[in-house]
């Protein structure tokens, strides 16, 4: 200790210096530098890698598919949120654990304000880490050639969820400053996420849509490729989560130690604001309805966001041309190869498509893709292929199943083409339609023996046990007779009877 008397209250800052940041920001800066939050980031990064990133790589390389697991179902939030809450609780309990409460209380700045600075730094670290992890993941996706637009709205939802987790954990630490609060906050956060997931899988409408891991109505396989990610539900969810964050931070300002009467009144007002935001979000979610492109909340909906994304298709195929969205370029050759045999079989028949184009799938509120038929329309007729509705894209296409083989892809594609051609829509079709379809498939290289399983999987995914039967019975007998005819005879019969067949007016005994 020196005895020299130094001026403890120096003269005002010298002129010409840059303006110094306000006290609050300087507090945040100190807290940022010394926050223990980075200590837990390696653990979170490892979790992120194993739980959020790796499972997504087994999906087809399209953004809405690879991110459906980690963003749509909220696994990134599950990986980051509870640990961030635990660490925030540890930090929030700091003054209680470290015995600095007296020292801090004896200062004029309201304790709540100082705590907000501490929370701000904590939240900044957590949110920044979340964004960096998500950014690195997307950069890696881009490096791998994943196509489409990343679901930025859902990244924002995740960041807001992390913010809410840090706020809740921090407040728990402030209100219950002991060493057990951190593990309890982390465990509580994890439990909440599990409950959120369970409720989310079950409830597909109402307030439950706001739960951070509810995947219903988030986005589907054509989002970011054929139509934009709708921001309606993300906005409502962010409002909900931000409201929770604000309200719990307000709770930290209620105890007498947090500050004077004005501070506590401000904290109470903050709670009201937070609860209002949360309540508004709940009200908005109750008005949500599923549109063909995603979840629409009328009060938040912008009609422009429902428009299809314009694109220049990529095309291939001689004779029968196939045109797809550029994001599906890698499947173009396979698709041409899959459709060509059926196209060849039906060429020249009335209503036979002259080309195939990709069409947007209809939004499905189920997890994953829902089966949707191909359709034939227009003049000249065009086969519309709702690629986004197919769960059998060749290559990696599932979280736990093996990659889809070319044979499976070919057979499914040909089935849907033949199904569209006989006019069966998304039903099994009449017996005559089934028989003609079977004959077409046989001619296109799908043996009768494999067809019952194929039909059951593609057209009756929820068929009860005992599952697909054998290729026997009157339908397959008629199909075998029809397929055995010379191509010219089949062709001539179809020219005459195709309209009636499509209208469901042909019975099985009328088949030659």
């Amino acid at each position: 200790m020196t005895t020299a008397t130094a001026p403890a209250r120096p003269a005002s800052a010298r002129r010409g210096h840059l303006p110094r940041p306000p006290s609050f920001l300087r507090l945040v800066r100190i807290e940022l530098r010394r926050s223990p939050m980075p200590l837990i980031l390696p653990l979170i990064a490892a979790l992120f890698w194993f739980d959020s990133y790796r499972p997504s790589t087994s999906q087809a390389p399209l953004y809405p598919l690879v991110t459906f697991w980690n963003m749509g179902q909220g696994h990134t939030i599950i990986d980051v949120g509870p640990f961030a809450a635990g660490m925030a609780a540890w930090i929030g309990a700091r003054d209680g654990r470290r015995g600095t409460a007296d020292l801090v209380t004896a200062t004029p700045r309201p304790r709540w304000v100082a705590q907000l600075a501490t929370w701000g730094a904590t939240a900044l670290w957590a949110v920044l880490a979340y964004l960096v992890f998500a950014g690195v993941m997307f950069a890696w996706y881009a490096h791998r050639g994943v196509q489409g637009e990343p679901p930025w709205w859902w990244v924002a939802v995740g960041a807001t969820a992390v913010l809410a987790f840090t706020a809740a954990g921090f407040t728990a630490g402030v209100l219950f400053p002991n060493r057990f609060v951190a593990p309890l906050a982390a465990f509580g956060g994890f439990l909440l996420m599990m409950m959120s997931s369970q409720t989310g899988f079950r409830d597909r409408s109402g307030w439950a849509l706001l739960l951070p891991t509810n995947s219903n109505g988030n986005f589907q396989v054509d989002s970011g490729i054929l139509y934009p990610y709708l921001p309606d539900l993300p906005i409502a969810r962010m409002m909900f989560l931000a409201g929770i964050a604000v309200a719990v931070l307000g709770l930290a300002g209620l105890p007498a130690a947090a500050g004077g009467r004005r501070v506590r009144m401000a904290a109470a007002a903050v709670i009201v604001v937070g609860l209002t935001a949360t309540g508004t979000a709940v009200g908005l979610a109750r008005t949500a309805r599923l549109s063909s492109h995603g979840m629409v909340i009328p009060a938040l909906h912008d009609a422009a966001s429902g428009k299809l994304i314009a694109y220049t298709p990529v095309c291939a195929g001689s004779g029968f041309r196939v045109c797809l969205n550029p994001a599906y370029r890698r499947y173009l050759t396979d698709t041409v190869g899959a459709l060509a045999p059926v196209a060849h079989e039906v060429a020249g028949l009335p209503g036979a498509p002259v080309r195939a184009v990709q069409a947007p799938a209809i939004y499905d509120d189920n997890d994953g893709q829902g089966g949707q038929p191909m359709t034939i329309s227009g003049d000249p007729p065009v086969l519309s292929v709702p690629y986004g509705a197919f769960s059998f894209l060749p290559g990696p296409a599932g979280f736990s199943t093996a990659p889809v083989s070319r044979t499976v892809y070919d057979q499914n594609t040909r089935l849907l083409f033949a199904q569209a051609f006989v006019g069966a829509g998304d039903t099994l079709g009449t017996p005559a339609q089934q028989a003609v379809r079977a004959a077409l498939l046989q001619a296109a290289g799908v043996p009768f023996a494999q067809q019952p399983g194929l039909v059951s999987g593609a057209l009756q995914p929820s068929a009860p046990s005992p599952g697909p039967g054998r290729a026997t019975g009157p339908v397959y007998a008629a199909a075998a007779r029809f397929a055995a005819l010379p191509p010219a005879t089949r062709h001539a019969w179809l020219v005459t009877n195709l309209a009636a067949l499509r209208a469901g007016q042909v019975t099985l005994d009328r088949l030659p």
Partner: protein
Amino acid sequence: MNVELTGLVRRFGRTQAVAGVSLRVGPGVFGLLGPNGAGKTSLLRMMATVLPPSSGRMELLGRDPREHPQRREIRRRLGYLPQNLGYYPGFTVTEFVEYFALLKDMPPGQVPRAVAAAVERVGLAGKRKSRLKTLSGGMLRRVGIAQAIVNDPELLLLDEPTAGLDPEQRVAFRTMLRDIGERATVVVSTHLVEDIGAACTEVALMNQGGIVFHGTPAQLTARGEGSGAAGDAPLERGYSAVLAEARA
């Protein structure tokens, strides 16, 4: 008077830690002596506006701490070193002192120089970038003193400030106290009578929550003369004599 206490009482359940203390303290260094459990820390915590009194009146720097705006003004002019200094182990010396300077509402532009001056005054300039977890107990005590004086307080409350300081540091500390005491009121709670004798202009002795002596160190010394009380130094004998009388 910078400190005016009237019938101040603080109870913790059935225990009365401070029992009707009345005290008036002006500028200078004021020593608060007493055995363990005498109520010194509770009294200091009340004066630091950390602990509200159970009853009685308190006026600090001419303001009533019960009123929030006035309490805030008091705190702005207050320096406080608690008996058990809590600290954030990851902070450096400078960051810790800066943190409290900012909490004390110091103008941001003045903070860096004030922090540097406070750290310099407690002799830790060479350790300003060291993390607190790497410092010895005595150094931590000095960090605590630095945060207490960083805002150039008008009322400085120090609870056992010399605990853990080596003799050389104690001497320097007393000099610093005298220097600060020329402009401000410094209340030093201690059970080390040599600190009182060397630095204080006035002293009060507490026992069982009450003030049993209030005067100058010389007057306290005089109370021990010829009393036969135990003690190695005259002030210690005065301390023992007053305590013995109070207990009798």
